[in-house]
């Protein structure tokens, strides 16, 4: 592949435009978060560093608790969802059993079901059985809505792994579960991480369930807590604080993607068979 200088220039500009388009809002919100309350409305892109907003949100119990809730709920939902999904996906990829088609289409139906249509009844149901404003109360719907996606992603990865590897493990003395855990899962690691990130992001970003099914710092996640932010006094808009919180919530996602990116990209299955 060789590029003429003109092609190179074109692509450089195109890439620059896309990056700017994607990052300007992020840069703007970062700049807002660094302004002191009286500078927020000045319309300037940069007017000095002030960590006032960050001090404010971290000094408030609401935000700290919400951060803990967000991390905990998203992490637990991800773990359970991936554990269940990998086993389900494995069965779907490897076995032929009655009702396989029903399960697959059922999973797809769950994924396509609009959350808004069940959130009302969930609210009533959760209040009746005591799940309202608790961690399990959010983990359950997150898990349910992310399982189909995780199952589909993972079964695609499992299907790529040569069946012989598993049979070799069985002949080597592994039980089916050992073969799954020691051979199949490590090889499907890129798939597992991809699915885990997708599930985590869904749970982390969700506003609808969090806003409806929680009310206090017991289970309120960051997106929900943000909606209840108030300014320093009754008369100040909490724009600076909201911006600071918004910057803080993106950080875990960025870290996670950076960590797992290499594992996702790594072609771990290379060399399994002659190729």
């Amino acid at each position: 592949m060789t590029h003429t200088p003109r092609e190179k220039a074109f692509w450089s500009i195109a890439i620059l435009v896309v990056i700017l388009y994607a990052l300007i809002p992020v840069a703007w919100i970062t700049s807002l978060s660094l302004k002191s309350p009286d500078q927020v409305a000045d319309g300037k892109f940069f007017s000095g560093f002030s960590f006032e907003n960050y001090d404010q949100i971290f000094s408030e119990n609401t935000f700290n608790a919400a951060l803990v809730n967000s991390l905990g709920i998203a992490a637990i939902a991800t773990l359970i969802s991936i554990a269940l999904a990998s086993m389900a996906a494995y069965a779907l990829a490897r076995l032929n059993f009655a009702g396989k088609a029903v399960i697959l289409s059922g999973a797809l139906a769950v994924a396509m079901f609009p959350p808004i249509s069940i959130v009302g009844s969930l609210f009533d149901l959760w209040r009746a059985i005591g799940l309202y404003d608790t961690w399990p109360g959010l983990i359950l719907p997150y898990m349910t809505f992310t399982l189909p996606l995780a199952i589909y992603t993972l079964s695609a990865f499992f299907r790529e792994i040569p069946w012989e590897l598993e049979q070799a493990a069985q002949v080597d003395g592994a039980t089916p579960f050992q073969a799954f855990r020691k051979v199949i899962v490590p090889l499907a690691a890129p798939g597992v991480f991809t699915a885990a990130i997708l599930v985590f992001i869904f749970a982390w970003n969700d506003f609808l369930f969090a806003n409806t099914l929680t009310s206090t710092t017991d289970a309120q996640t960051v997106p929900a807590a943000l909606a209840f932010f108030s300014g320093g006094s009754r008369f100040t808009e909490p724009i600076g604080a909201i911006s600071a919180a918004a910057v803080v919530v993106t950080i875990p996602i960025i870290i996670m993607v950076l960590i797992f990116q290499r594992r996702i990209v790594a072609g771990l299955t290379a060399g399994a068979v002659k190729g």
Partner: protein
Amino acid sequence: MSQIVLDHITKKYPDGFEAVKDMSLTIEDGEFVILVGPSGCGKSTALRMIAGLEDITDGELRIGDSVVNDKAPKDRDIAMVFQNYALYPHMTVAENMGFALKLAKVDQSEIDRKVSEAAKVLDLTQHLDRKPANLSGGQRQRVAMGRAIVRDPSAFLMDEPLSNLDAKLRVQMRTEVSRIQQRLGTTTVYVTHDQTEAMTLGDRVAVMRSGVLQQVGSPMDLYNNPKNLFVAGFIGSPAMNFMPAQIEGDTLKLPVADVRLPEELRGNLGGSAGDGRQVIAGIRPEDFEDAHQVGDHKDRGTTFTVTIELVESMGSELYAHFSAVSEHSIESEELRELAEDSGAGEVPGAGEEGEIVARLDPASKVARGKEAELWVDATKVKLFDPADGRSLTADSTAEGNGAPSASGGQSPAGRDPEREPGGRG
């Protein structure tokens, strides 16, 4: 180490396809048995049933003294080498070879010792810390072998282990496999579609076709006394030439020449072989000779004159191709299958020209387009029943499948000389 017994084993898939039909075979302790046949003949399925990777529909499989039909692969104490090696890509060579021992909860020091021992045998010592992806095809194949060796199992099962290697490496590894098996004396079942591998490696060879065991015997036994057309055409390279022929008195009328049937052959045909009987004659390329080079055994055969169409010189031998017009036509299901699989075993129809290959001494003066006098050894001619492909000339004394006398001659020293006759008795 132990005996493997397949007792009327049948494999039927849910869609009704029978991959293996009523197969009975006894593999003796320490024996090297080859399952050979064209693709789709059920040989791999049979091996996978021994491994426990396929369910057995009917029949009984015994390894050692126990029936293992319902045992999981891990409880059968067997090691398998897969066609694509199936190395664990996320583990180093050492971890690959030690995986089975690790699962068996063997001490790490013991694992290290066994792995390095096997690595030394297989010349893999300097590669122990590498991942399979960084190895060459031959090295991967050796790792796959090593994984089987370290475990010291009661049997090795090999599913076309050499078919992914290039031709030169394959010959090299073939010797290697044979050497390792002799050294360890482990019962081995080896599946291949390559008759050369089958002939060179096995103590005994089992030829399969469409799920049915055709013949079991030592390589020489199969070569000299094929029980039917299929075995005759499958074993030997280049393949046996087949041609329609007719028996008239003590003369066999071949498309190329009339041959006097030797006494032994006539005896085998029995008195009922009346005049005018149609048969399929099979002559191996090596049973032709240049008439000028035949020694004092010339009276065993017949000389005839043909026009040579093509000469292939291999250095150590010459392949002379010529054709002969047949008067009769013969149809055979087995030959059609052979022909589809390998291009060998075509019987020309009536009035058609059938191509015949003769293997001659390189000193022969035959040349393309010239007439040549060739000689055929009448005592080596095989005759087959066109109806069912059964051999009419197979030596009945050596016919018993894998009779001890046949395989016993090939056994390495130290094996039980009085073992039971294997095969379907």
